[in-house]
């Protein structure tokens, strides 16, 4: 990934920053300057919003043949998660047996390494999720999204 591209996405990736639409009272992730449901009226009415990072698993799969750059994680759990504010994201669920993740489970976001770029040498960080009842809750308190400084 190029340096400008990674820099541009930092806020959204690191801090789970999306958008709140004042017209329809809805939340959007990733950040949008325009809400497709509200149309052009929403331009100028979208405010940055930091998601709480809590949500529910909609669906999950155990990936045995890993994505490029994720070979070290395999097998790992990929899921579609519905954030409590409404929008859905695709993310890895970590720190658990991937086969145990089921739809309906509560999850919360953590700050983790996503990978590194062999060409540019950039380390990618971003948001992943853990099960809310994860036993190392206390340990992960430190890396909740509010505590990350850019």
């Amino acid at each position, binding site marked *: *990934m190029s340096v400008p591209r990674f820099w541009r*996405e930092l806020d959204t990736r690191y801090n789970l920053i999306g958008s709140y639409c004042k017209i329809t009272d809805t939340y959007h992730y*990733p950040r949008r300057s325009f809400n497709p449901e509200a149309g052009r009226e929403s331009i100028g009415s979208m405010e940055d919003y930091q998601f709480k990072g809590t949500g529910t698993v*909609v*669906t*999950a*799969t*155990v*990936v*045995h*043949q*890993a*994505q*490029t750059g*994720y070979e070290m*994680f395999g097998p*790992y759990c*990929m*899921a*579609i998660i519905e954030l409590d504010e409404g929008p*859905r*994201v*695709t*993310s*890895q669920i970590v720190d658990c047996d991937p*086969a145990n993740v089921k*739809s309906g489970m509560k999850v919360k976001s953590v700050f983790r390494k*996503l990978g590194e770029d062999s060409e540019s040498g950039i380390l*990618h960080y*971003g948001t992943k999720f853990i099960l809310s009842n994860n036993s190392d809750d206390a340990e992960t308190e430190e890396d909740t999204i509010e505590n990350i400084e850019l």
Partner: protein
Amino acid sequence: MRDVSIIGVGITKFGELWDKSLRELGLETGLAAINDAGITSNDIDALYIGNMAAGSTLQQEHVSALIADYCGLANQNIPATRVEAASASGGLAIRQAYMAIAGGFIDIAVVGGAEKMTDVSDSESSYTVSMGSDEQWEAKAGATFTSLHAMIAQNHMLEYGTTREQLSSVAAKNHYHASLNPMAQFPFALDAAAVSKSGMVSTPLRMLDCAPNSDGAAAVVLCASDKAKKFTDKSIKIIGSGQASDTLSLHHRKYLHRFPAINIAAKKAFEDCNKKPGDLDLIEVHDNFTISEIIALEEIGIFKRGEAAQKSLDGETKLGGIIPTNTSGGLKARGHAPGATGIAQIIELVKQLRGEAGDRQVKNAKLALAENHGGTAATAVVHILEAE
């Protein structure tokens, strides 16, 4: 609008074609198609090229000019246009040529699709395929293209009780069809139990649920129908064409077990010709995964939602069943060379409607449909063909 006919076809075998370059594949199929049509290069008004990934796999963009050049068309200076919509590139290239001819801008177009997926490593070609989904918010987060379809399959199972046995029947059926197609990448039968026992890729999808990433090329010649008779007496008319889009990311969809873009594109194509799903004699659908074929059958309206999987297990989509599906072997067994796939589907239908499909011929085939999509069906394109 003018009527448009397909007057010539040419295709390579799909597979690991390490001894052939993109330009050679383009030339080979282009020549075969114009020979089949009985035209000369002077008759060609325009060239359309379906290609998804030459930039990623070959470090070569601008493949429209490249293929025109190596087909000997550079000194005629005809317009050459590349069309890209991930795995729907080929079907979409046909639609662009169809619209240009129907609209009266040109009379004859050659539409070629070509792809080289095996020059690079498996992990590179897999990542290239992921670029048809949302690279930034799906692939980069760790979601393989298979894992997105795995989540689709799980939701289909949850909603309708779709089973492993039913999914396996789709791959086994497509392999049976491929065993009758000498041009298929995997021209051998495979029994459903082998599919069910193959290695896990992303739960619940297994190795043999997935189509390969192939090299290959395919080309067709499209002509205004009123001029077709001048060249050939075996033209096949395109009587319906539809295209639709959807969110690029799967997670932004309301339902995870449906492909609405296919439904909308199919409805538009049926409206064009005033036909309905029950009128069709055979279809080719985009079975990049077994679950995709089942959903496509439901979105096109061949079967009610939730019934296609059992109909597949019952043999209704096999040769001799009520709607033979993917008689070529489909993406699973004919092979899947993204830019060429949508064109290969059309070629299978043309061969069937001409009565030239050999051992896999559908008796008395008159009306056929092709469904081609890109990403998790963020682009879908549907064509309906009729024997003249």
